[in-house]
């Protein structure tokens, strides 16, 4: 494995490549990629949880918290700087996560999934009736500035937001990669296989899951704030369970082996959505369902496991051991 420096080098290269690609790409693609990266960050949070064996069906809670934190800061306190707004989103997600975490600590499997779902629906219900926050209509936001720079033309603004989102995404992804490869990150894998064994080895499963949950919450907040900036609008649907379901879909599609795969999956799904809503709007969900079934059936490790298989088969002539991916 390449280690921390390899990850950092890859991050710098990724940033440069994204900046060039965004400059060359048409505006519609830049807009789609911005939104896809924002959503990918939330899915990355679920991936962090999945490595410890937990799947949250309520990441919409943090996504929504981040979006509303950024939105309220912009509207009430006239904070316009994207970096500040996203930082506020992260803090909002993190604080909410730290409050909720003790409540969820004892839950696993379906109970964890349904309880997170219930919490997100409570947030959804409350926001729908909170008229000072726009109720069910939500609120409109204006374009942010970037470290003092305020783009004049709309094309410049979308490219600037894309650059900023890419930078945030690459930093978050690199930090996640470093965390995943660290001792604590690897312990998540062990906890997923057998919690009792990990406890006997002297590590705290509660703490491992707590840290993963906090990471997921903060990433949810960042993703929410970035989505709010790129959509220019926030509403309670950010916390609706179908939104959370979409993040779980992304996480399953990408698998928990590769961090990059999350964002590849996000861009693919976002592209698929924009094409199908144009050409076959009534069967898009169904197609997504069929696709999800096929992935779970034939590629249980997700898209990321494809890359791993390729890497392993290049290093050794033997095929990759499929069991270790499960």
């Amino acid at each position, binding site marked *: 494995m390449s280690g921390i420096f390899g990850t950092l080098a890859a991050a710098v290269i990724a940033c440069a490549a994204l900046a060039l690609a965004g400059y060359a790409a048409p505006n519609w693609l830049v807009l789609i990629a911005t939104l896809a990266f924002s959503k990918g960050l939330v899915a990355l949070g679920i991936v962090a949880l999945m490595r410890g064996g937990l799947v949250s069906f309520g990441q919409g809670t943090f996504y929504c918290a981040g979006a509303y934190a950024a939105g309220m800061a912009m509207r009430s306190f006239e904070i316009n700087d994207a970096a500040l707004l996203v930082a506020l989103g992260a803090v909002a997600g993190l604080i909410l996560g730290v409050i909720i975490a003790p409540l969820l600590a004892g*839950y696993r499997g379906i109970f964890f999934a349904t*309880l997170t779902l*219930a919490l997100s*629906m409570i947030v959804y219900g409350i926001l729908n009736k909170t008229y000072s926050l726009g109720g069910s209509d939500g609120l409109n936001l204006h374009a942010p500035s970037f470290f003092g720079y305020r783009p004049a033309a709309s094309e410049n603004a979308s490219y600037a937001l894309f650059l900023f989102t890419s930078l945030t995404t690459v930093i978050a992804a690199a930090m996640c990669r470093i965390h995943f490869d660290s001792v604590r990150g690897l312990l998540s894998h062990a906890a997923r296989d057998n919690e009792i064994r990990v406890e006997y080895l002297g590590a705290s499963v509660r703490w491992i899951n707590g840290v993963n949950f906090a990471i997921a919450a903060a990433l949810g907040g960042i993703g929410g704030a970035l989505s709010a900036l790129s959509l220019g609008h926030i509403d309670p649907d950010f916390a609706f369970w179908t939104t959370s379901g979409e993040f779980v879909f992304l996480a399953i599609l990408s698998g928990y082996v590769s961090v990059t795969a999350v964002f590849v999956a996000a861009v693919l799904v976002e592209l698929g959505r924009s094409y199908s809503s144009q050409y076959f709007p009534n069967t*898009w969900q*169904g197609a997504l*369902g069929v696709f999800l079934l096929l992935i779970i059936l034939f590629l249980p490790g997700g898209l990321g496991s494809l890359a791993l298989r390729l890497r392993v088969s290049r290093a050794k002539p033997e095929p990759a051991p499929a069991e270790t991916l499960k």
Partner: protein
Amino acid sequence: MKLAAAILIDGVIDASWLFIVAVGLTLVFGVLNILNFAHGSLFAVGAYAAASAVGWYYGGGLGPPFLGYLLMFGAALAVALILGPLMERGVLRFFYRRDEVVLVLVTYALFLILEDATKLIWGTESYYASEPYALLGNVSFFGLSYVGYDFALIGLAVVTGFLLWFGLNRTISGKIVLAVIHDRDISRAMGVNVTRVFAFAFTLGVFLAALGGAFTAPKISVQPGIGITVILLSFAVVVIGGLGSVEGAAIAALFVGFARAAAIHLVPWAELFIVYLVMALVLAFRPEGLFQRASARKI
């Protein structure tokens, strides 16, 4: 007093259809270990099928009005016999050895497919099947007027619950199902045809969802999106009651029914999330629901 009576009666009426749907969900979880996300869509398909059948029957004036109820029952049965085996044999059986959470995702995929399939078959406009709703006249309680059909629905829920309890606890095939719930591997070793029990239990679950849908159809306008509300509500009922528990589903349905009725009468703005609040509170104190089953810790 009048308000308390209204909350009580509304709660029980709400609980009745909710119980029919939720008990199907809990049965499927008990036997197959699958929390079926598509259950709400099956409710919707049942409602659409019944609404179409009722519309066709009363529209043409084809026979005595009361036969419409039989037709609604038949519609639910037809939905179960077609979709139950199709989903269980056609899709779910390929995923049985997977993790519980992965199975939830599989049924989530089925939910997405069914939602679009209902839109393709029945379109996006609303269906109304109000004729059977008015047939039983009105009933008066504490000066409050209620539609007789709503009370018939309570009766249907009680009968369904009793038949299910009796079938599971007092018949040979029911005991075989209980054995499979307890330990499918040992049951298989003892010569039980577990595959058949799975197919049967899933189809019965589909039937209960469709039955709930068919008999709720006259009360509502059947339109896209009803499945989503129902799955979230019955999810809450099943989780509050304890996954896999029939008695739990009954008590929890009443819980949820009363909570919703109380919210509608007392704090209308809380109606959207009161159910999830109750669910979160119950889970916070009893992590596996009110009627949790003791399970051996497998290491």
